[in-house]
């Protein structure tokens, strides 16, 4: 049997992988298997990539008939301003270019993430200590600002001023932390 990757050398390694109940067989030569890096417990990514570009291409806005060219044009232009990665290259390689890509492509991301992560698109796990600390402060500030608006609305200006000071204290403390 020839290696299905290079179609050149003899396939000496045979992998079976079962993803969500579907059996997937691969027949590779040593060289290509090494490139795919499916050793254990090393990386985890052979065929994940193929699987993924398949999934990404299932994006309903790609390849449908109605308004195809218009959508395609928008897609051509969609790009991360920070690292310069085009959305179409993200689909092609299934790799983000930087952390900002997640924001740049956010409108298109959730359906893709849902497919990859069994219907989930929101993180519910660990929050890092420091970045998480900032998050907590941000949440607190947002809550206090709403409270302040309410006081202003009710013409309770003294209490609004108190809340404003608390917001300032929190923001100051956070500013110092950020300077470290």
């Amino acid at each position, binding site marked *: 049997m020839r290696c299905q990757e290079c179609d050149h050398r003899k396939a*000496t*390694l*045979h*992998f*079976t*992988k*079962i*993803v*969500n*109940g*579907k*059996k997937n*067989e691969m027949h590779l030569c*040593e060289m290509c298997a*090494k*490139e795919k*890096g*499916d*050793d*254990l*417990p*090393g*990386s*985890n*990514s052979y065929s*994940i*990539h193929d699987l*993924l570009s398949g999934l990404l291409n299932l994006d309903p806005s790609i390849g449908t008939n109605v308004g195809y060219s218009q959508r395609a044009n928008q897609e051509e232009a969609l790009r991360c301003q*920070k*690292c*310069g*990665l085009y959305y179409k290259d993200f689909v092609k*390689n*299934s*790799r*983000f*270019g*930087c*952390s900002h890509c*997640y924001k740049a492509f956010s409108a298109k*991301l959730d359906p*893709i*993430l849902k497919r*990859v*992560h*069994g*219907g*989930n*698109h*929101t*993180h*519910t*796990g*660990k*929050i*890092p*200590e*420091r*970045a*998480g600390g900032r998050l907590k402060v941000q949440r607190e500030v947002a809550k206090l600002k709403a409270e302040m608006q309410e006081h202003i609305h009710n013409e309770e200006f003294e209490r609004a001023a108190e809340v404003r000071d608390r917001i300032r204290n929190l923001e100051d403390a956070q500013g110092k932390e950020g300077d470290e």
Partner: protein
Amino acid sequence: MSLEKFISEAISPWMKETGPDDDIVMSTRIRLARNVEEFPFPFKSSEDASKALYKHVHERLPQPSDERIGKLTWIPIDGLSEIEKTVLVEKHLTSPQLAEESTQAAVVLNNDESVSMMVNEEDHLRIQCLFSGFQLGPGYKVASDLDDWIESYVDYAFDEKKGYLTSCPTNVGTGLRASVMMHLPALTTTKQLNRILPAISQLGLVVRGIYGEGSEARGDLFQISNQMTLGKSEEDIIEELRGVVLQLIERERMTRKNLQEHNQLQLVDQVHRSYGILANSRIIESKEAGRHLSNLRLGIDLDLIQGIQGNILNELMILIQPAFLQQFAKQQLSPEERDERRATLIRERLKLENLNDGGDRP
């Protein structure tokens, strides 16, 4: 180089430790994918930016005070010979991609090689902790503490809604891949595994035969890991995997007991035949070697064979891979030559066991 020295360099110290349920679970691995804010991911990074990331992390991280981790050594990949790179890959301390393609890459190792961190691989940081036996819970704790410690020095790319941001969307969220390597000879022989595996994959877990051969796994070794990283907490991911592994352990033990009760003679025969072949063959293919090593290991676990250490299976499964055979021979080998070297290496390795322990000979 003597075989003993070769093995001691080829096998990571952590592998020689014993661990819970290590008659069935060979090892546990926890991997966390992390990126540093403000730096482009390695995939989109210029050489200069990769260099800056390397420098940024290297300068900020001191030596850890956590004694479970110990001293960390930075090994720049560029400075390694091809052979040294291959060894790191075969020991699963780096990926082939890191060894061959990455620029400004490093692997950071602790003394017993149970902790390794790849720098500038697919993500900026890939933290990996390896443990002997079945240690998902404690293993995750060590990895998570190490993660906290690193985060106290570098700013992680983290988003409130999407979690830890990774280069590939399959890792986003927790960035956690937990895997367990299991030896399941009884479930394999009795063909029960064929029925169990599809059910496991329904639970969002991935099962993979190691050094696979068609639908079988060589050496009856399987890796089970979580597939999804987003929308579940780390604790839930670990707990779900743990639950499935516990069930598999129980079934494997039950099946082994059944085999012993109802097919004692066949079992003893099979184990000793395998021992005989491993101890005497002059040419052996890796598929055949895997089968007999699995039987030998089963015999050791069931106390049908004394005087040989159980870790001979995991150890030899690594050593009989082509890269290691060629490294031991210090030359390229044809498949025929490899089969011969493989047989020799296994025979010599078994002789070491007998010398050390005076165990029974086949």
